[in-house]
């Protein structure tokens, strides 16, 4: 068998997933021995035309990170789908929409105003806004169009596998690469991780299953590093999040925020966590219960930090 042909692409993402592919360390040399990279805009000089000229199905696997937010994202996703035998949504943005997906809580107008007019770090006195087309001395330049609703990759194209994480942990990336190179791939549509169960299963912090009188945000308390963070009132998302990452955040005193997505079989991760939290309140007074949960400042942003575009509601009504 010849070397595998692999493409990597970033759509609407922060670039962390591209770095995460390199975080496997010296194992990258094993990857280089087994695979040729035919397209990787963040690291090597390729043009979209190079990909367009490739024959259909000529790329063995595409690791696609980033959500779909612009016409460019969508165009490249569709192009890479037709050129690739295996399409892998790599990282939380491609898998679930992730942080870019939170824009689905806002209207297009409020986003444009915030970014180009109202942001305190912007000096734009003439209120210049980006235009789809602009004519300069060299000719006409064109920008991609921006969608008001961010979508995950599988809401735009057919996706074969999903690699969770913001960004994926090196061992998760390596698991996916091993399965890819050895050809021992799981069933189509699988989420590739070392665990399908909740993160709490692998988190070493001892759990007492305590009920809480008050929820805290991470900056409000210094948690006991030897105890379950949820028991201490921190909104640790481990109960509703797929494991496989090694639970490093809770072990460092930071609550899990849910980046590995829902546990196997759960459709809506945010509502799953909300349900779990409802069982934790230490009160039998409905007014006190209301007061305790009302302290959670931003429920939508907390519960759907990574999964808003693939949630049941998908976006807010903003018109």
């Amino acid at each position, binding site marked *: 068998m010849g070397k595998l042909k692999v493409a990597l692409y970033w759509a609407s993402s922060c670039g962390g997933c591209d770095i995460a592919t390199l975080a496997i360390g010296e194992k990258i040399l094993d990857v280089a021995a087994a695979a040729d990279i035919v397209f990787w805009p963040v690291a090597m000089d390729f043009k979209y035309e190079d990909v367009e000229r490739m024959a259909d199905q000529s790329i063995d696997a595409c690791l696609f990170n980033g959500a779909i937010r612009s016409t460019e994202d969508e165009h490249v996703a569709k192009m890479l789908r037709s050129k690739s035998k295996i399409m892998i949504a790599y990282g939380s943005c491609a898998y679930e929409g992730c942080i870019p997906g939170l824009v689905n809580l806002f209207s297009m107008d409020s986003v444009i105003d915030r970014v180009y007019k109202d942001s305190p770090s912007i000096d734009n006195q003439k209120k210049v806004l980006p235009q789809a087309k602009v004519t300069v001395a060299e000719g006409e330049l064109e920008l991609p169009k921006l*969608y008001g609703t961010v979508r995950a990759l599988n809401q735009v194209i057919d996706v074969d596998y999903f690699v969770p994480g913001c960004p994926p942990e090196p061992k998760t990336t390596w698991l996916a690469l091993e399965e890819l190179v050895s050809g021992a791939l799981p069933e189509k549509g699988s989420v590739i991780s070392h665990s399908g169960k909740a993160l709490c299963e692998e988190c070493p912090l001892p759990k007492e299953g305590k009920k809480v009188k008050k929820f805290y945000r991470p900056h409000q308390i210094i948690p006991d590093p030897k105890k379950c963070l949820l028991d201490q009132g921190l909104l640790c998302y481990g109960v509703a999040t797929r494991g496989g990452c090694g639970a490093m955040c809770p072990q460092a005193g930071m609550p899990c925020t849910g980046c590995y997505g829902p546990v196997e079989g759960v459709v809506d991760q945010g509502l799953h966590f909300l349900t779990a939290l409802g069982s934790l309140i230490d009160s039998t007074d*409905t007014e006190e219960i209301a007061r305790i949960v009302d302290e959670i400042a931003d*429920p939508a942003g907390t519960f759907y930090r990574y999964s808003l575009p693939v949630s049941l509601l998908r976006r807010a*009504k903003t018109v």
Partner: protein
Amino acid sequence: MNKFEPKIVLFLCNWCSYAGADLAGTSRLQYAPNVRVVRLMCSGRVEPYFIIEALQSGADGVLVLGCHPGECHYLEGNYRAAARMVLLKKMLGQFGIEDDRVRLDWVSASEGVRFASIVNQMTEAVRALGPFQGQETQEVIYG
């Protein structure tokens, strides 16, 4: 002629509110025919997921009725329902979904009149809001 008749999914617990609904029926009480009853063992079984799924599947409102505080057959199921409902409503506000679309209340087995009255109130509240429309159907594109 096309008067809007709201569809309301009504979750009832086996022990109090379903018996309350039953009493309303056997007492021949008149109440709005807009509710579709789903009987569960406890209001604590009503996951927020069920509520959103109902709305996304065509319901215009969701009503959850459980035992009065302190009277839950499972001791604390209705407290769980109460906590989830506060959180869910706060979150639905962020999604632009009206507060009156979803309601949690308590009905005991002897409160047939109260059951009929809550169903009527809920039906009128949802009727005033109009049909539930989920996410925008019209995609906004910039550029």
